[in-house]
């Protein structure tokens, strides 16, 4: 990799005798690019001619000083990628800020109505009440019921995807023969590829009817949404868990088998404990997928904005954070949009956090296993 070919920027630019020309080319490309971006941000109407100028300069540079220009272009691609990521993050937070300043913790902790804090809202979940948590007309905004709905759906999904995913990962990593693995692994990948709207359509058309006849429900429910989302999160758990199990060094398992242990004993006492953090990272990542799942939930559960009553009633239905955004954005007023941004930021922070935590766990595990090799 790069360590083997030591280069620094200065070297690359000045290593050849046509250094002046290449500096000029690189400089021209960079200047036109910066100009293009500036023009796009401040005078979008002129962006296209500027872009054409940039393309022209780059083409000339490509013909004359290919290496330098290529290096610059890859650098530009990196910078643009990083900027995109940073800008999306920044923009989300900036858009959510007004609503957060206006409603304060009311959105997330204590709901408000008509400017008054409803301190005893948790009583309302026990006592019947008809006060509302979400009514844009009267300015009542609270995301707490949606957060709770997200939690319920995620818990059910985790209960489905966790154990099944673990067994699935064990099957692929340890039990299946090579030929079977060649079939099952792509199968799991294809399961991940089925679009969420297809799951949602099945849930909407078929499963809701099923639960009405078999569980005496009046329609949509957390249970169905959770199970469907669980099935959707399953491939993530299986493939990440399988990676973790496969990264356990062969020598550890061999040692166990050499001691006369059966395969299952090896799995149970060597592979799973060694890969435990990796497997938990898989479950975390799967839960992140479940939290962020939108269309299946939006299709299955007609939106509601109240707490389930009682809280653990899995046959009730309510919008989750994601489906709230999907169903409310079209008809939202400006202040509602701001609140929806708060929901978006919450999702972003939670899921990104889960992703980072699981990556950290995985890296630590890899390091540890490498150390033991």
């Amino acid at each position, binding site marked *: *990799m*790069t360590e*083997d*070919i030591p*280069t620094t920027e200065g070297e690359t630019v000045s290593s050849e005798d046509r250094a002046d020309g290449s500096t000029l080319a690189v400089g021209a490309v960079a200047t036109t690019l910066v100009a293009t971006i500036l023009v796009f941000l401040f005078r*979008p109407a*002129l*962006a*296209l*001619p500027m872009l054409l100028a940039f393309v022209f300069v780059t083409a000339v540079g490509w013909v004359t000083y290919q*290496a330098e220009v290529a*290096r610059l272009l*890859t*650098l530009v*691609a*990196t910078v*643009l*990628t990083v900027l995109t990521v940073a800008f*999306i993050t920044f923009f989300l937070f900036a858009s959510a800020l007004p609503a957060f300043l206006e409603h304060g913790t009311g959105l997330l902790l204590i709901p408000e109505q008509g400017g008054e804090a409803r301190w005893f809202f948790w009583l309302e979940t026990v006592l019947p009440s008809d006060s509302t948590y979400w009514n844009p007309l009267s300015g009542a905004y609270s995301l707490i019921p949606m957060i709770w709905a997200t939690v319920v759906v995620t818990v059910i999904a985790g209960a489905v995807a966790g154990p099944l995913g673990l067994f*699935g990962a064990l*099957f692929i990593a340890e*039990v299946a023969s090579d030929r079977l693995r060649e079939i*099952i692994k*792509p199968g799991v990948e*294809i*399961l991940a590829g*089925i*679009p969420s*709207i*297809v799951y949602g*359509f099945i849930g909407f*058309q078929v499963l809701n009817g*099923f*639960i009405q*006849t*078999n*569980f*005496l429900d*009046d329609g949509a429910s957390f249970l169905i949404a959770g199970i469907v989302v669980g*099935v959707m999160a399953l491939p993530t758990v299986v493939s990440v868990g399988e990676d973790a199990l496969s990264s356990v060094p062969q020598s550890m398992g061999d040692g166990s088998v050499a001691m006369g*242990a*059966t395969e*299952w004993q090896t799995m149970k006492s060597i592979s799973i404990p060694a890969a435990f953090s990796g497997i938990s990272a898989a479950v975390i990542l799967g839960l992140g997928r479940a939290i*962020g*799942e*939108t269309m299946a939930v939006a299709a299955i559960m007609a939106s509601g904005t109240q707490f389930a*009553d009682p809280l653990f*009633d*899995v*046959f*009730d239905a309510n919008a989750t954070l994601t489906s709230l*955004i*999907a169903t409310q954005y*079209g008809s939202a007023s400006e202040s509602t*949009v701001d609140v929806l*941004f708060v929901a978006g930021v919450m999702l972003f922070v939670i*899921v*990104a956090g889960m992703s*980072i935590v699981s*990556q950290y766990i995985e890296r630590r595990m890899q390091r540890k296993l490498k150390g033991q090799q």
Partner: protein
Amino acid sequence: MSDAYATTDRLVSADSNSYDRGLDAAIALSVIGFTLGLVTLVNLVPPGASGSSLTTALGTLLAVVVGAVGITGLASYANVVPVTSQRVRGIGLGLVVSVVALTVLAALLPVTMATLLGAVLLVEALAITAAGVTSRLELVDTEPNMSAGLLSGVAFGAIGLAMGAAVGGALAGFGSLPWLIGAAVAGVSLFLLAILPREDLGSTLPTALVVGALGLTIVTGTIGVGWQWNPQTLSGGFTGGAVIPVFLLVGTLLSAWSAAKCRAGFGARGREYGAFLVINLNAFLMVAVMATIVVFVTLKGVGYAVRGLSVGALTALVFLTPALLAAVQFARTPAGTNDWNDGARQLFRVLPLAAVGALAATFVSVLVTGSPLRYSYAYTVQVNRQGQALDTALAVTPDTTVGPLLLLAPAVLLAVTFFRSFGSLRNVGTQSERTGSIRQAVPTAALVLVVLIGFFLILGPAPFGLPLGETLGFAAVVAGAVAAGGLAVTPLVGVLTSDGPTLADSAQREAPLFTLGVFGGLGLLLAALLLQPVAGINPRVGPVNLVPVVAFGAAVASLALATLTTVAKRSSEETITRRLLTEETRLGLVGAAGFTALVGLHVAATGVSFTVLGVAVSNEGSFSWPMVMQAYIPLGAEPGGIMPAIVGTVWLVVGATLFAVPLGVGAAVFLTEYAEQGRFTAVVEIATNALWSTPSIVFGLFGAAFLIPRLGGDESLLAGMLVLGFMLLPLVLITSRESIKAVPDEYRDASAALGVTQWETIKSVVLPAAMPGVITGVILGVGRIAGETAPLILVLGSTLNATESVDVIDGFRFVSGPPFIANDALLTASASLPTQVWAVIAAGVSGSPQMGWATAFILLMVVLTFYAVGITARTYFRRKLNYE
């Protein structure tokens, strides 16, 4: 094979006694019970079924089981797939026996499905108890541990707690003290029963108790088919229809695990068998879920999706040609010895060829007899919120018209395939002076034509009011076409007039004419062809157009050339000559396919049909697929199709790919090859991974709030492209980085050792080696975003039943002020496949579920095609990397 394997094999194949056979049957019965539980849960057979409906259902299962076991048994007997394991044999036999028993019982006794399933659980409980007791009395040879272990103890404790709570709640009411006590007692006693006795009792008795209790509840009708429990506190409730199958799933899973443990004689080996059985069942369940989803959507949607599909027999034949070629190629692969099971393999090799050949023969018969093939059925449309059945048919008509694109695609495919197998004819034969000068003149002529194309493209067919297109362009096209025709015929004439002693010798001597004729002819004719539409002309010779006539004639000449060389090859002996002649045949085939493609391209470019020998190549092709090729028809008798949605999805995917792939691959190259591996790359990696798992709706929110106000203020196709591009970017970056990292450092070192600069190394060593991985990653990512819905419903602005497709290509126009190029089509709302499905859901009762299913089916097929291509490409490249 090592000795250890042989030992295991012998152990597994050891003769089984009646204890073993009984347990094999118990495992088989559990598997059958599990399957039946799934079947009743999804109401394929209702739990209340009895009498003939039950017998029919079980009879079907019997047929499936007997078929599967029978075929496997036959294969094993014939030594094709030898099954030596006594366990597998025992379970196979057990499957047959238990399904036969169930079917006989259902036919003889007046029982319902539920009772039968309860009885299955009771039998299981008895069998497991018997096995445990037999082992405890040391009547059989087992190796149990001292205890079943804490893990299973805790598991049984939890099950006992739940069952005690349910029973206590039903008897004494929830929340009361007896309820708590009952639950605790049941839990603790099962826990103790599991851990205290020796393993053979500890893992059988609690199982038998639980399974038996579940079975009794069902058999006695305590929880029967009509049972309902609707607690006030919940908005839902429970019915027998749901609870009985769930009981069965739990009970059979437990009993399968326990019986498997008994079968392998407890101890470490028993635990392994038990655990593996459960893991395998789980994998089976996962695959079953996946297959069910795909099959279910297909069954629901395919009827509506392919309604009215009709294709001309000739078009079908043209379309079948590549498949025919692939089947021939497959059949040509060498097949082993004369042993009869090698013969079986050979049969499988020839089978595809036979199938495709039969299909082709059917189409030919349609052409010859003139009577169409039809399959008629009815589909449902939604009229005024009511389903209404309409008749439709799939048809193969005796139509000899071929659409230009349907001719172009297979022809190009074939030409490329033949060209790839073509090696080289350089330095073969004798090169005359005249051929040399022609060889130099051809590129010049083609270049002149290309310059003319550019000229007319920019200035229009009549620049400055001068009719240059009709004069200069006309002359150029005629000259180009005639020259191309002449070139294409040259090799044929050359070979026939050459004075070599044999045909093979003439063909070998005139080899330079082959490459010149085929490639020169193709290039010149292509340039002349493309000059026609830009110059606005279409030269004619008598009743027909010039260019397609030349192309057709050239194709026939090339085909004749291929035939000639094949004939010559049959009569020649020398290996080198035969090789050369094969190359020439391939070149002839390239020419034939290429010139045929040009016929199609001519019709597509000019829109004027071309008829020869009763076969017409026309823009009004004979292929019709209303669902894909029509827009929605409001208030029509037929509902039309979803073409706008398909076009929208195609443009979304194209736009997102154009945005994300250059950025992602560029960034991956920089991060892996140039940047120092350290904190910065690690942060970027973590950030891209985080972005990759960010909920898609958040991207939609960003697009709606940031992009839309800056792109004209309306929901638009461009915003959709960009948002999907943002989503695709991290995936492209991650997969490209991984595949660039996977290129061995030796490659880079070797290149550097040759004095190659870093960029040249990247360009000609690293990127080619990493390309398969990058392409695969892009294909899989595109498959994923093609089905993405959530962001699109915020930014795309699609409506249900769009009647017009976006026209991006014709939307480009030049404007006087900046930004000089505008495209209104990109800035308007569009339909797309996933949002179409969502619109059906959002429309509620007025949405047409049949159309929703059909759209979901097409969407699923599109996405799965991307995945299948991606996964196949990855497997192919991986194999290539590993074996070469």
